[in-house]
C-alpha cells in the first residue's frame, strides 16, 4: 500500500482518570523520539475522574501544530461518547476500539479494528486491567504506523521512570497488542511514520514549566499563588525547581512561596514584595485577574513593580475551565477602575515563555509597574518543542532604586513621583533604608507622595503615568514579522496562534493570496506593528476570542488613516485553533 508519511491526526477518546494520559504521552514521545514532527493536545474536562477526555496527536512534516481539521485515526475507549465519536468521523477513517466495551461499531464506511483490550490486560494483571487496557491501543497504533520498538521502549521508560515493574508490564502489553494487530488487522493503514533526522538538542516541555524556569532565572524572590486551572502547574513547577536552583550555600531558599487564601491576597503579597524591594510574582487565570483588579490599580497608581502571569482559560465567569482562549487580553491591558494601562508580554513559543519569564521582572522594576505575562491553556499545559533554553542575555535591571545617601544627594530635587529624567520614571527608595520615607498610598498624591486632591496635581500625575507606560513600547519585545515581497494582505496575531499560523498561511496561499504575518509579542504595541500595517493594504487581526480584543485595542490607539485597513477575525469555541476555521474566516472577511 502507498503510504502517507508523517501527515495525519490521531484522536483518542477516553474517560478522565483511567490512566490514558500515560498511553497518549507514550505515543507522542515515541514519535518524537523517531524525529517525527509531532504535537499533542489534551482536551480534558473539569473533573478528576469519569468525564470524557480527548487527546489529539498531529504528525506533520510541514511542522503544522494545530489540531488537524479531520481525524485520520480515531481510538474509541469511552462508552459514554462512543456513538458520538463514531458518528463524527469522515468515511475512510481508521477506528481502533476496545471490543470488551461490547458496543456496536456500525461504520461500514470506515476501517474498524477491534481488540479485546481489557481481556488481554487481565492476563498481565487482573487488578490493573482497566488501566492497562489503554496500553493496548498504543500497541495497535505502533503496528499501524510502524513506530519503532526502540522508540516505544524509550518513551515507556521515560513515562514510568524508575518504576521497573511498571515499565516491564506496560512494554509487555504494548508488545502483545502489536502482535495481535499484526495477526488480526494486517496492513490496512495508509498512514505511517518515517524516521527523520532529529536534533539531539530538542525536547518537549509545557509552556507553564518554561515560564516557571524563566522566573527562576529572572530572580523571583516571592511566589504567592492560589490554585486555579490552568495556571497551577506553573506555580508547582517553580516550587519543584527551587531546591535545585534557588538555595544559597547554607541551604536557605532565595524565593519565598506562599499559598495564599485567595487571589486578592496573592496580588497583595506581590505588591508588598515589590514595595519592599523584591521580585514578586503570582500566576492565575481570568477569574483570578478579576479578583486581583483592585490591587492592580494600586500597582499602577502607587508605581510598585510586580508580575502576574495569566494563563487564559475560556470565560466569561467559570466558563469552560479546562479549555483555551485569548479572552483576557483587553482585561489585562486595562485592568482595574479608572484610567490604567499595563504592560502585557505575550509569548508564542516555549522559548519565549522562558525568556519573557525572566524579562518580566526587568520590565516591572524598570518601569515601576505591574507586568502581565499572557499565556493560555494551549501553550501552558500542552507540550511543545524547544532546542533548549538560552541563558538571559542581559543583566538584571533593578530600575531606579536609590540605595545610599550619596545616590540620593546626586539627584536634584528628589521626590518619589518627580520626573527628574524626563522619561516619566521617578526614583524610589525602599522601606528599611531610612531614605526619604513616604507613606505609599492609593489616594491622590503629589510629586513628593503627599496626599493631594489638587486638580492640576492629579492631571499631571496621570499624564506622566501615560507617558511612562508609552515609553515602554519600543523597549518591549518587537513583533515577529514574516513578510512576503508582494504582500497585499497582512495578518496580525499573537500568543498560541503561532502554532496554527503556518498552516493558515499555506491554506490562504493555496487560495491565491499573498500573506505576510506579524506576531505581536507585547502591549503597548511596538512601533513596528504600526509600520507593518502601513505597508499592507488590508490587515486582518486574528485571535481566539469572540470580540476581537486586540483589534479593539489597535482601533483605539492607531492613527486614523490606518483604521480603514483593519479587519477582524475572532473565533473561539474553547478548542485550540484549527487552521481551516480561521483560513475560511479570513477569506470571508476579505471577500466582503
Amino acid at each position: 500500500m502507498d503510504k502517507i508519511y508523517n501527515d495525519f491526526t490521531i484522536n483518542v477518546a477516553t474517560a478522565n482518570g483511567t490512566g490514558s494520559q500515560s498511553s497518549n504521552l507514550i505515543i507522542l514521545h515515541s514519535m518524537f523520539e523517531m524525529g517525527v514532527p509531532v504535537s499533542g493536545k489534551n482536551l480534558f474536562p473539569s473533573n478528576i475522574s469519569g468525564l470524557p477526555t480527548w487527546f489529539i496527536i498531529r504528525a506533520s512534516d510541514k511542522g503544522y501544530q494545530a489540531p488537524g481539521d479531520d481525524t485520520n485515526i480515531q481510538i474509541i475507549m469511552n462508552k459514554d461518547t462512543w456513538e458520538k465519536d463514531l458518528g463524527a468521523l469522515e468515511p475512510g477513517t481508521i477506528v481502533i476500539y476496545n471490543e470488551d466495551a461490547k458496543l456496536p461499531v456500525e461504520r461500514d464506511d470506515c476501517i474498524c479494528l477491534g481488540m479485546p483490550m481489557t481481556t488481554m490486560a487481565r492476563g498481565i494483571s487482573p487488578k490493573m486491567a482497566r488501566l492497562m487496557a489503554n496500553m493496548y491501543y498504543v500497541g495497535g497504533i505502533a503496528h499501524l504506523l510502524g513506530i519503532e520498538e526502540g522508540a516505544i521502549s524509550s518513551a515507556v521508560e521515560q513515562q514510568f521512570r524508575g518504576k521497573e515493574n511498571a515499565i516491564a508490564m506496560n512494554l509487555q502489553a504494548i508488545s502483545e497488542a502489536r502482535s495481535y494487530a499484526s495477526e488480526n488487522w494486517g496492513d490496512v493503514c495508509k498512514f505511517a511514520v518515517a524516521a527523520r533526522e532529529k536534533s539531539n538538542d530538542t525536547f518537549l516541555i509545557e509552556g507553564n514549566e518554561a515560564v516557571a524556569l524563566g522566573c527562576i532565572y529572572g530572580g523571583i524572590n516571592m511566589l504567592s499563588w492560589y490554585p486555579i486551572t490552568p495556571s497551577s502547574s506553573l506555580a508547582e513547577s517553580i516550587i519543584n525547581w527551587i531546591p535545585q536552583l534557588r538555595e544559597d550555600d547554607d541551604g536557605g531558599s532565595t524565593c519565598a512561596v506562599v499559598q495564599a487564601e485567595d487571589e486578592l491576597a496573592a496580588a497583595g503579597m506581590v505588591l508588598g514584595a515589590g514595595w519592599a524591594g523584591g521580585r514578586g510574582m503570582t500566576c492565575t487565570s481570568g477569574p483570578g485577574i478579576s479578583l486581583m483588579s483592585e490591587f492592580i490599580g494600586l500597582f499602577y497608581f502607587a508605581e510598585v513593580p510586580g508580575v502576574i502571569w495569566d494563563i487564559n482559560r475560556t470565560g466569561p465567569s467559570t466558563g469552560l475551565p479546562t479549555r483555551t482562549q485569548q479572552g483576557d487580553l483587553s482585561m489585562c491591558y486595562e485592568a482595574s477602575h479608572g484610567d490604567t494601562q499595563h504592560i502585557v508580554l505575550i509569548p508564542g513559543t516555549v522559548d519565549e515563555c522562558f525568556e519573557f519569564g525572566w524579562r518580566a521582572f526587568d520590565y516591572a522594576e524598570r518601569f515601576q509597574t505591574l507586568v502581565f505575562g499572557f499565556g493560555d491553556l494551549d501553550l501552558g499545559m500542552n507540550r511543545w518543542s524547544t532546542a533548549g533554553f538560552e541563558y538571559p542575555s542581559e543583566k538584571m535591571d533593578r530600575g531606579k532604586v536609590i540605595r545610599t545617601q550619596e545616590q540620593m544627594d546626586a539627584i536634584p530635587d528628589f521626590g518619589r513621583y518627580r520626573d527628574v529624567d524626563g522619561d516619566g520614571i521617578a526614583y524610589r527608595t525602599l522601606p528599611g533604608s531610612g531614605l526619604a520615607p513616604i507613606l505609599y498610598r492609593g489616594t491622590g498624591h503629589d510629586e513628593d507622595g503627599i496626599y493631594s486632591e489638587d486638580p492640576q496635581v492629579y492631571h499631571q500625575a496621570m499624564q506622566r503615568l501615560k507617558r511612562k507606560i508609552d515609553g515602554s513600547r519600543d523597549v518591549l519585545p518587537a513583533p515577529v514579522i514574516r513578510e512576503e515581497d508582494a504582500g497585499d494582505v497582512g495578518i496580525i496575531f499573537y500568543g498560541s496562534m503561532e502554532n496554527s499560523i503556518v498552516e493558515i498561511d499555506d491554506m490562504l496561499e493555496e487560495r491565491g493570496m499573498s500573506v505576510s504575518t506579524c506576531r505581536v509579542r507585547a502591549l503597548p504595541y511596538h512601533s513596528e506593528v504600526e509600520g507593518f500595517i502601513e505597508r499592507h493594504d488590508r490587515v486582518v487581526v486574528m485571535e481566539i476570542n469572540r470580540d476581537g480584543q486586540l483589534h479593539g485595542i489597535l482601533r483605539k490607539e492607531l492613527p486614523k488613516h490606518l483604521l480603514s485597513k483593519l479587519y477582524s477575525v475572532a473565533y473561539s469555541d474553547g478548542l485550540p485553533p484549527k487552521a481551516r476555521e480561521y483560513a475560511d474566516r479570513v477569506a470571508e472577511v476579505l471577500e466582503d
Partner: protein
Amino acid sequence: MVKLNVLNLEKSEYKGGKSSLCPGCGHDQISNVIIQAAWENGIKPEGIAKMSGIGCSSKTPAYFLAKSHGFNTVHGRMPSVTTGANMINKDLAFIAVSGDGDTASIGIGQFIHAIRRNLDMVYIIENNGVYGLTKGQYSATVEKGSKKKKGTPNEQSPIDLCAMAVNLGCTFVARSFSGSKKQLTALLRAAMSHRGMAIIDVISPCVTFANNDESYRSYNYVKSNDEILHIVDYIPHFSPLSEVEVPEGEFSDISLFDGSTLRLETVSEDHDPGDAVAALRAIHEATQEGRHVTGLLYYNPDQPTATDTLGLSETPLMGLSDEEMRPSVESLHKVNAGFRAR
C-alpha cells in the same frame, strides 16, 4: 533637658504629620501611644514599616513615625501586603493599623490567614463599631442593642475579634481602650517586643457618630464598664528587673522575645495568659455582662513565624545580589541536559 531614648533620639523623631481626624477622636490618642511606645522601646524609626488598610484608622500612619516608610493599601487587604513585604524583608518591624470595618468585614479573611501564618507584626485594631469615613454605618463588631447617635439600634450579633484570634491560635492577643494610656502603652510595648502576630483590639470611641450613652463604645460607657484583667507594666530589656521597683500585691512576669518583661499585676482574678480557655471565658463572661475586658488576654511565645517555616536565606531577600538571585549558566545547561535525557 530634652529626654532621649536608648538610641539617643528625641521623641520628636517618632512624630508624624498633623491629624485630619475629628477633634477628640480616640484614634489620635492611639497614634500618640504608638509614638510613645516606639520611642520608649528604642526602635529605629527607619526599621519600622507602617501598614494600614482603608478607613479613619488607616489614615493615621500619616500622623506618626514620619521617618518610617509606610503603605496605606486597599480596604481590608493590608495583611497580604504586609505578608509580601515580610517575605522580602523579615528584618522590618511591621506596625499595622486597621479598623473594625477594615478587619471584621471586608478584610476578615486576610486577618484570619495572617493569624494562621503567625505573621511577625503588630496589628492594632482601632475599634469604634462604626464606619466613620462613610458617615456612621454600623460595623460588624458593634454589640447587639448598641445604638449610635442617629438611627435604630444594631440587631446583629457582633464579631469579637479577640475571641476569634484566640480560637485561631494567635500568639499575642490583647484588648485595651484608647482612653487607658498607661495600659495601652505597656501592651503596645510588649506587642512590639513579641515575635509573631500581636493583636491589640483597642476600643476607640467615635466622637462624631457614636459617643452617645446608648453606644457600648462611647467614652463614658467604656470608662465605667472596663473590666481590667490586670494592671500591666512593661520593663524593657535594657533596664534589668533588679532595678525595677517591685509593686505591692501579687504579680507575674512574662518574658518577651527581645528579653524585656511584661509585668502583670493581678486585679480581680488570677488570669493566666497562657490559658486559651481562660481567655475565652473572660471575654465571654464580660460580654454577657455588657462589659469590656481589657489586658493581655492570651500569649503563646516561641511559635514559628511565617518566614521561619519557609527556610529562607539568612539575608533578607531584598538584600541578595544578582548572582544569588540568578542561577549560573552551568546550571541552565544542566537543566537543558536533564530534559534531553528524559
